[in-house]
């Protein structure tokens, strides 16, 4: 099979995670993997992002496939049920809203900047070593910490299911994947 430039986007995903260890402000770049898939789905009506450009999916196939870090077992039925996929999407969006609210509080001066990354919405990891001040408002940094927490959490979840089930098991319940598929379904349903 021909190898194309976008088959190498897993490098970008890996780099993104690493950069967050050095300067948290790089976390803002993660917004790209939020808006690009939604745009492709809303405008183009396809899951082109998942199907081609998603570096995270590629990273999981590489680690689970080529490096063999996966049991390659079937994912349990309930994890691919609509109830779980949509439920996880709603939970994820709620947590996203909470993160935006926390950012707002820092912008409004109600709360101090928390220099921590929260893993799995529970564990606060000290992350002050990746913060060197900002030219902008501390709220800008708060958003970066919050967004990076989400990215790291989803990577960890994805790695766990990669090991337990098939390499790209994360794609079954990935909120971006579910959301883009819903948009595509809505679009495909409208114009027969």
């Amino acid at each position, binding site marked *: 099979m021909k190898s194309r430039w976008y088959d190498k986007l897993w490098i970008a995903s890996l780099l993104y995670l690493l950069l967050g260890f050095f300067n948290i402000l790089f976390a803002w770049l993660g917004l790209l993997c939020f808006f690009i898939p939604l745009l492709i789905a809303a405008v183009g009506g396809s899951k082109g992002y998942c*199907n081609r450009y998603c570096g995270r999916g590629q990273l999981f196939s590489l680690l689970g496939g080529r490096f063999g870090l996966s049991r390659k077992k079937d*994912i349990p039925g309930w994890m691919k049920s609509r109830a779980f996929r949509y439920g996880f999407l709603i939970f994820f969006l709620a947590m996203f809203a909470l993160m935006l609210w926390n950012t707002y509080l820092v912008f409004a001066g109600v709360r101090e900047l928390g220099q921590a990354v929260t893993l799995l919405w529970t564990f606060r990891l000290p992350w002050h070593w990746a913060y060197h001040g900002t030219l902008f408002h501390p709220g800008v940094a708060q958003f970066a910490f919050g967004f990076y927490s989400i990215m790291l959490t989803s990577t960890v979840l994805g790695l766990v299911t990669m090991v337990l089930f098939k390499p790209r098991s994360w794609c079954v319940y990935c909120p971006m994947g579910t959301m883009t598929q819903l948009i595509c379904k809505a679009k495909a349903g409208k114009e027969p």
Partner: protein
Amino acid sequence: MTSGKKRRRAVVDRAACVACGCCVKVCPLQAIEIVRGVAARVDPEKCVCCGKCARECPASVIAIREVTP
């Protein structure tokens, strides 16, 4: 296609497909595509039933089955 003879083909459970495209990437014959971001579809003319897509599919929704042409 040979008449009347049953042939084995990859069949996607379209209702459970998450349209991730993992199957498309591994098919050696480009016999599978994602239709409008909703679900995968196998071209029964092209599929040679190698089973690669079924092994790759993270949701395990592809089965190799006998289909009547």
